[in-house]
């Protein structure tokens, strides 16, 4: 179970001043902002014969959102959507949305997960502002960092705990290993559903809306010059001489 210290005291209403520029305040999540891809994901999941290992390709987009508050609690975050396909398959293998949130006052990372098979969870874990590795957990039955499944999943493939470990790599990629421990009727031991991937950036993040609106005029990029850029030729060698 995650220990999440409440650092906010008695005043539960007064909101702090957040920084409009989310990308500058994401702490350990800064390295995750952007659009990422990989074709070498690894998945071990249960099938009737036992367990099955499969590889997958993944497109993972994480875009900054405006800062969010709950009274004194302040979050800077990334809204994410990851889409996973199996090799040579057109249909979606896995789809997942949610938020990665950095809470500077508590030095905590919080993660929400929702999948279109009727399951949600809220995980969290401690991290330093400049951490390159951190781990978040959730457990069924927790009233704060818990897991909720639809009735069938809860009966047939009950996820009792969840863990995701993130590593920011020196080469600019980032990796995750996530593990869901499932209780499955008819099996003596819990099943460890493990996914791993290392993602490479294909595009930078788009600044959050408030950052764009409040950027100083001088910092806003001028319209792209679509001219041929001929300019002065005074310092160029003569056209024939």
């Amino acid at each position: 179970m995650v220990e999440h210290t409440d650092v906010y005291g008695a005043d539960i209403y007064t909101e702090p001043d957040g920084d409009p520029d989310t990308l500058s305040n994401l702490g350990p999540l800064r390295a995750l902002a952007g659009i990422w891809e990989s074709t070498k994901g690894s998945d071990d999941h249960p099938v009737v014969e036992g367990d099955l290992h499969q590889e997958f390709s993944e497109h993972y987009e994480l875009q900054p959102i405006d800062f969010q508050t709950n009274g004194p609690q302040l979050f800077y975050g990334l809204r994410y959507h990851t889409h996973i396909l199996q090799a040579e398959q057109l249909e979606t293998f896995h789809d997942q949305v949610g938020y990665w949130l950095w809470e500077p006052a508590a030095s905590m990372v919080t993660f929400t997960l929702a999948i279109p098979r009727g399951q949600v969870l809220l995980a969290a874990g401690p991290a330093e502002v400049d951490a390159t590795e951190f781990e978040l957990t959730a457990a069924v039955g927790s009233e704060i960092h818990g897991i909720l499944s639809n009735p069938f999943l809860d009966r047939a493939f009950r996820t009792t705990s969840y863990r995701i470990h993130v590593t920011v790599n020196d080469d600019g990629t980032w990796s995750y290993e996530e593990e869901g421990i499932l209780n499955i009727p008819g099996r003596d031991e819990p099943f460890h559903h493990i996914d791993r991937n290392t993602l490479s950036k294909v595009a930078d993040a788009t600044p959050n809306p408030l950052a764009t609106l409040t950027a100083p005029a001088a910092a806003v990029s001028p319209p792209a010059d679509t001219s041929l850029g001929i300019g002065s030729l005074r310092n160029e060698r003569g056209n024939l001489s």
Partner: protein
Amino acid sequence: MNHLLRELAPITDGAWEQIDAEATRSLKHYLAARRVVDFEGPLGWDTSSVGLGRIEPLKAAPVEGVEGARRTVLPVVEFRAPFSLSLAELSAAERGATDLDLANVIAASRSAALAEDGAIFHGYEAGGVAGIIPSSPHAAIAIGKDYSHYPEHVAKGVAVLRDADIAGPYAIAMGARCYTGVVETTEHGGYPVFEHLRNILGGDVIWAPAVDWAVIVSQRGGDYEIHVGQDFSIGYASADAGSVQLYIEESLAFRINTPEAALHLSHG
């Protein structure tokens, strides 16, 4: 998207790159005035005039006891050279062709460059552009086709400018025939006329196909200024089943601060 509407053209990025590269190369080849006058800009497509810092008093008063005056400005003129390209030819760029038939790009670039140079060297009355040569108060020096005598003519021209308190270095912009003649000619003793002219001028001898004969221009700076609103750009006009219509466009004003800073050499 701006007024050039490039994004609407049925042209791939690869083909645009080849079109832009060919136009840039061709424009730089033909443009000469930008090698001898000061350059300001690009100031933007929405620039319509260049202020001269002066006023023109108005005869009629707006009300009794109030004087009226109008700021004097140089209007910005636009030059546009249309051309068309075959869509079939452009589609070859995506198949890896690097030798697209861009003859129309070259022709339009040449026309656009000659339009700019013609206006700057000889003026463009319809557009209110005063040129370097018609603005010069100095009498033209007569030259002919005996290129071996050009050093004497140019030395005489430089002396006129110096006497008029116009300091060097100087450059000379030469029409195509003059330039070729100078390059081909040596003086008695075999010294190239081209090199001799450079020594006299202290500056370049420039191929300027828009110039009639030749013009010596001081290179000290501050005498002539091109103010470019939109620098040469390629825009999209329309397309049909077989071709796309594009254009090369620029906007500019030309300001002359010292009309005495140039001297024409012309056929006597």
